[in-house]
């Protein structure tokens, strides 16, 4: 081995190497192990902790199949429809949000433990519910076509062409575990994944491509990334009317 001690490396280089190499990979850090003496005085942000805004420009990078996207939009817009409370999931950017999330380490399942042996029944029995055996990207790649195939088989139409009531009925069936989407897709787990991601997109910082105009935050009255509530804590029970603040300036 070269000793983990790199005598030629000063603190700046050590930190720099931690930060930049890390940004390139899924898990938080790579690069050389660093030997640190003395307090690192550098003030530049670690590259792998800088906020990374969602990819912009209108093109989809993971959800590239048009039918899949239409299926997803139809499902998302029933999970979060447009109404008096605010825009629909797709109007708020939740499809772009999901596409971007799936392009990140989250989509690759970088944090998951996916080593075998894998035994669905035994693991589900011990863990009280189905465990996850695939990355979110793969789960969408299998789940969306399965949903479309289900609609074609039961209704003879595209999922996206079904009436809102019929989509609600299918979503309700999935949620209750009463609809079988085939051997490769656990319908109930796929429903939970879509519901989780749709609502994440609606409620996460607009930095990530969803929650457009902070519509999700305005719906509930969450003031966002303000970070200092000392002036307000003693206004107990008062309506504070705080305009929400995002990590990125308003477009």
């Amino acid at each position: 081995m070269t000793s983990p001690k790199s005598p030629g490396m000063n603190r700046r280089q050590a930190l720099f190497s931690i930060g930049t190499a890390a940004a390139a990979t899924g898990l938080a850090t790579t690069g050389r192990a660093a030997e640190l003496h003395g307090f690192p005085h550098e003030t530049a942000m670690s590259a792998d902790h800088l906020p990374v805004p969602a990819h912009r420009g209108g093109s989809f990078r993971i959800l590239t199949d048009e039918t899949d996207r239409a299926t997803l939009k139809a499902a998302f817009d029933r999970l979060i429809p447009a109404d008096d409370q605010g825009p629909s999931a797709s109007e708020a950017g939740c499809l772009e949000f999901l596409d971007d999330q799936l392009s990140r380490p989250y989509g690759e399942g970088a944090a998951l433990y996916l080593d075998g042996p894998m035994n669905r029944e035994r693991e589900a029995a011990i863990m009280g519910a189905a465990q996850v055996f695939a990355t979110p990207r793969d789960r969408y790649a299998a789940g969306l076509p399965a949903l479309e195939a289900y609609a074609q088989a039961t209704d003879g139409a595209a999922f996206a062409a079904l009436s809102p009531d019929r989509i609600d009925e299918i979503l309700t069936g999935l949620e209750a575990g009463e609809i079988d989407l085939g051997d490769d897709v656990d319908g109930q787990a796929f429903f939970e994944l879509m519901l989780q991601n749709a609502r994440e997109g609606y409620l996460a910082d607009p930095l990530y491509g969803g929650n457009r105009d902070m519509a999700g935050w305005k719906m509930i009255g969450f003031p966002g990334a303000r970070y200092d509530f000392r002036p307000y804590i003693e206004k107990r029970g008062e309506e504070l009317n705080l305009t929400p603040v995002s990590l990125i300036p308003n477009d």
Partner: protein
Amino acid sequence: MANERPKADVVIVGLGWAGSVMAEELTRAGLNVVAIERGAWRDTSTDFPPAVDPDELRWHTRRELLQPMSVETTTFRNKTGQTAAPVRNWNAFQFGWNVGGAGTHWAGMSWRFLPWDFEVATQTAERYGEARLDSLMAEGLQLQDWGVTYEEMAPYYDRFERIAGTSGKAGNLNGERIKGGNVFEGPRERDYPTPELKDTNWMRMYRETTEGMGYNPFTIPAGNISQSYVNPLGVTMGPCTYCGFCDFHGCGNFSKSSPQACILPALMRRPNFTVLTETEVLHAVKHEDGKTVKGVQFVTRDGEEGFQPADVVCITAYQMDNVRLMLLSGIGEQYDPTTMKGTIGRNYSYQTCSSVTGFFSGAKMNPFIGGGALGVQIDDYNGDNFDHADLDFIGGAGIMGYSTNGRPIANMNGIRPGNKRWGSEWKEAYARDYQEVANIFCQGTSMPTRDAYLSLDPTYKDRHGQPLLRLTFDWNRNDKSMIDFATEKAIEIMKEAGGEDLMVDNQAEAAWNPYKQHSSHTIGGLVMGSDPSTSALNPYLQSWDCHNVFSVGASAFPNNGGYNPTLTVGALAVRAARAIHETYINNPGPLVEA
């Protein structure tokens, strides 16, 4: 040995709370210390400043500060005989993996345990009779004292509170009970370093309600500092802004007690301190005689292995990894639940919890005003603070009304029961209930049993091919009765406060599993005590089996109190480090005769 580094006086394995407290004590005493930390260097201004920290999706939902399961996970089963499964996705275990450990992303509730918690066996027998203790033991509980009393721990608690800058109000100053503080706490010599935090709307309601019911509410002692403060190491902390992005997040304001905010600025400047980051210790290496270790074998991020020799090895890698590293190093004997022989892995316990949610029509709770440790608690039903003579359990729970956060994704199911989690029905419910919901949490004791333990998994491995740690655990009858009792009290309080449409989540109602549970407080497995046949460590946290190995963490607790663990971990770290530099270094050998 190849790739051998220069010898250190002490090597610290894991630079989180316990590791940094020990390194500070030991370097101040002049010892040459090398810390080896699996995660990266992280600091306030470079890694979680205010422009980065208030990002719920990244830090809370995706848990990007935490140690991923792909790096190391745990396997789990409810009972011996089952084949355990690996925990594949995010779950109740929320391990740290950066310099600072879980001490960077913790919430900051900063409790001293009750005097009773240290002597459950003795005090149960004294107060309720030997027969009561015998019947609990016959039922399967494995009760034993810690080998250290609250009185002996008090000075170490005091030291850690001063370093961490804990906010709070004393409830027992040298035996004098003070209303407004926790009148049930053990005696303390002086008040907290900084005053208690302010009340949110819900805390004020909870305080007034419980006071009206005859209870003794107090503000939870907090590692969210209430005003600027300079600690004994000369490090300055700034006031908490009630930012509401605390647990799972770092703190951008230098306000959260953490190794970063309280210790590292002083420790890193000491010439006799070195830290190797992104370097994982694989195991300790024993001398031929098996009575001591020579140092630790490690692997860098790049996969290069090396050896760090040292006179003393301190294992401070968090409760689970402390146990795992002892087993991987072959130090001591694996506990066996059938023969009850062996001490490594013995006395695992958890935290028995429930929560009660209520809704207040028309209220403005403004839940986004929050802090990780922000809450009001009553301890009237914690520990042995109430008479158990006519109850069918021992132990109890702290019952708190809390205001930790109003993060929108985390709270999206906090809607009145009967409403759908999607569609316009969800939107309408969430738009209304976000401001109207309030929570009470019961954080209860957990008693060890013969059947709950840790061992190495025979099948599943980590990324380096080493066996994962396997947990065998389920709720015991005593703890279930205890939390049923505490939950009833919490329901009464919620109703009295005016909460409606109650939702009750009693976590002990169904079999334990790591996805259903919420508490990160895993306890025991490498416990301290005065009897080497039932404890792995002596009362100075020194291994009975290898006298130059010390291990500090919640792994050392023989049972869990109705509190979060960290102040006790920090206090034990001070105690162990002082034993090392005041006694052990000059005269290496067992500090207590077996």
